[in-house]
């Protein structure tokens, strides 16, 4: 019955296309259609960004050891849940709340706590605020998951819990407010289209603070300062992770257009692809040239570094510049990984190199490559050094990197330092050797692969 009527309806629609539109007068207006399209795209983009968590799960799990697999993977889902509640209750209000007076608003937003949005968009909105919230929340969760890189394989579950509370409610929202929420750096014209600084650098510096306070994993460095290689247990996971992140990144960058309009978000997607490609290619080649072996791990990090770098600049630069930004990011991530190892910072999933070094580079790259036409189109800041803008934009970018970086690092360090003093950050040596699956959760992620009695497996 239903099938028959659907068939009939379909046939009628083919014969009389105009029937699809109801009679004049009570149909949607153009503005409403525009809003609807925006809403649809932003929600799709938000879902893509949320799917990037799948990438982080596989990336972090694949790059670490079997005995921690269940913990590493599972805690990401838990903290995504926790940060959603915290961001809903407090974080979103600090980032985008509009009730603060002008002088306060420069530093922090107020309002919209325990966010209770209107159920649909009202007249004149370009999208429903519900969808904007979901989209922004997904970004906050990404930044948090980046930070976990610095915690990997040795932090207590309680440290994850407390840090999520503070990071999701205060640290991340303040930086998001400064650049995206009408804060002082937005006024300054800092260009960070989709969050090289806001999301990636912030996460990376939280990771940096964590790894300094946690100290290297057992067995990473020898007494004489030489490093040991602690290989991840599954390179296939890591590769799939990069693909998931890469795909999700189209939501991250192209979604940041927060409109469909004339299709500018397509240009953003286009430069994003070029940047990622450049990063992957350059990283593999540089590792091959310098170390004599083409390193898969470095190549994967290169793809991510290309994505991180192009995130700030995807809407501001020409295609060739997107390629250059990606290529430089790929080389940079390789050098940065060696640098961190040299200064004896244990960074199991290269969060500081991928999201930190490449995040800085991507943000600064705007100061070099931003074109006048695209800057006018987006409406933020000025053209870069190579496009007649002089050093002004480069300086603005530099300031935003330094200030946001310093704040993110200092705030994270303070919070983690307090946690360390009060309850401790790191599991005991014995627990670390047994693995966090067992010590924090009571079961292995791969129960058939590891015996509970086998406490010596590193």
């Amino acid at each position, binding site marked *: 019955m239903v099938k028959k009527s659907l068939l009939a309806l379909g046939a009628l629609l083919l014969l009389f296309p105009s029937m699809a539109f109801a009679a004049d007068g009570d149909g949607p207006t153009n503005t409403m259609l525009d809003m609807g399209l925006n809403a649809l795209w932003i929600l799709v983009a938000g879902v893509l960004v949320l799917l990037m968590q799948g990438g982080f799960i596989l990336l972090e799990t694949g790059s670490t050891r079997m005995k921690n697999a269940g913990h590493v993977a599972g805690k990401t889902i838990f903290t995504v849940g926790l940060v959603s509640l915290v961001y809903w209750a407090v974080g979103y209000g600090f980032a985008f709340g509009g009730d603060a007076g002008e002088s306060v608003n420069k530093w922090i937003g107020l309002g919209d706590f325990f966010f209770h949005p209107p159920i649909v968009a009202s007249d004149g909105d370009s999208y429903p605020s519900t969808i904007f919230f979901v989209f922004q929340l997904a970004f906050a969760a990404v930044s948090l998951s980046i930070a976990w890189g610095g915690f990997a394989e040795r932090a207590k579950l309680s440290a994850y819990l407390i840090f999520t509370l503070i990071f999701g409610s205060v640290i991340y929202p303040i930086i998001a407010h400064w650049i995206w929420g009408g804060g002082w750096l937005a006024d300054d014209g800092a260009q960070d289209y989709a969050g090289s600084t806001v999301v990636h650098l912030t996460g990376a510096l939280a990771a940096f603070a964590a790894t300094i306070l946690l100290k290297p994993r057992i067995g990473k460095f*020898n007494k*004489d300062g*030489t*490093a*040991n*290689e602690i290989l991840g247990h599954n390179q296939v996971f890591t590769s799939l992770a990069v693909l998931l992140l890469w795909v999700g990144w189209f939501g991250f960058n192209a979604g940041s257009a927060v409109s469909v309009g004339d299709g500018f978000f397509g240009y953003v997607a286009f430069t994003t692809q070029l940047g990622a490609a450049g990063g992957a290619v350059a990283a593999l080649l540089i590792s091959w*040239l*310098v*170390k*004599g072996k083409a390193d898969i791990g470095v190549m994967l990090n290169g793809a991510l570094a290309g994505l991180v770098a192009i995130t700030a600049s995807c809407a501001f630069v020409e295609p060739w510049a997107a390629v250059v930004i990606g290529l430089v990011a790929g080389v940079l991530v390789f050098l940065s990984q060696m640098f961190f190892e040299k200064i004896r910072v244990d960074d199991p999933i290269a969060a500081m190199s991928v999201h930190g070094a490449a995040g800085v580079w991507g943000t600064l790259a705007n100061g070099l490559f931003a074109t006048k036409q695209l800057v006018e189109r987006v409406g933020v800041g000025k053209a870069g050094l190579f496009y007649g803008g002089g050093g002004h934009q480069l300086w603005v970018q530099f300031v935003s990197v330094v200030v946001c970086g310093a704040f993110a690092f200092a705030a994270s360090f303070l919070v983690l330092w307090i946690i360390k003093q009060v309850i401790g950050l790191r599991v005991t040596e014995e627990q670390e050797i047994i693995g966090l699956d067992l010590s924090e959760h009571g079961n292995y992620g791969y129960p058939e692969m590891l015996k509970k009695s086998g406490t010596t497996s590193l």
Partner: protein
Amino acid sequence: MSNLHEEKRLLDIAGAGTPERLRTIREEEQNRLKAVLSSSPAVELLRELNQFHERLIVRAIQLAEEEVARRGLGAPPVPYAYLLFGSGGRREQTMSSDQDSGLVYEDPSGEAEAERLRHYFQTLGETVVQFLIRCGYPPCEGNVLASNPEWCLPVSGWGRKLDGWFEEPSWENVRHLLIVADGRAVYGDEALGERWRARFHRDFSGHPVIARRMMENTLRHKALVGVFGQLLTERYGEAAGSLDIKYGAYIPMVNIFRLLAVRAGIRETSTLGRIRALGAAKRLSAKEVKESTEAFTLFLKLRLLAVEKDEQGQWTGTGRFPANRLTKEEKSPLKKALKLARKLQRQLEGEMRYRFGGR
């Protein structure tokens, strides 16, 4: 080595009645050589060291013959030759080299004789290997030893074995051929040793394509120098920053010149000797001979320097050299030598591709 010292050593060795005594003599001599290592020319020192090893090995074989006779098997029933492979075959043993050996004996005249000879030489091979272990030469991990029946055969048996390897150049068989290519008789009937070697060279000239298989078999050991001329050192672990001199410098050169020499029908087994002979046969230019000799001499020296005595007093060679402790001036000849090795490797690869096609 002063003549006086040398003569005393000779007498000591000749007078040694047990492997343990040989070991003591070896300890003294190696301690002495180790002390003068950094101040003396590597080639000279290596020659001395290898002559010394050779005399010890020969004496150990003689002691083993006596031991076998004491057990009632009598003197060697037919002429035989004790073969050295690996670094011993190439006269490039360090202070920590292990044993790679084989044995070839005259063909038996009948079934019963065959069994008797097999038993005798099997016992002799086992005894020599055991004695040399007692002298401090660890056995080859791949069991290329005179005590292994596969490597202790009459002349005709060796011939069939070699033919089989040449006919069926699987990865394992080619590895065996590479080992045999460095083999030489260290003791026993020299003419027999020569016949054994001649068979290998005759087979080789009948199977020129084996050269490519040999090259493929050795390609995984690349000269450890990068595109920018940088040293490719270990990145991780206790040995981080050190260069794998054995597999990243010495072995690639050994492989290159073994292949070139065997193809030119040169019977010499030491790498420096092969380089010289290749020059004499006009297969290498005078400049190439000079450069290759310099480069290989440096690798030999570093390889000797990489030998240490561990806590148990055992001589061990990691084959790794802490390149990060070298000064810039010291690094430059090393880089030059490695670049030459890399260039030669590439040339050989290109030539093989040209002659036999790519794969």
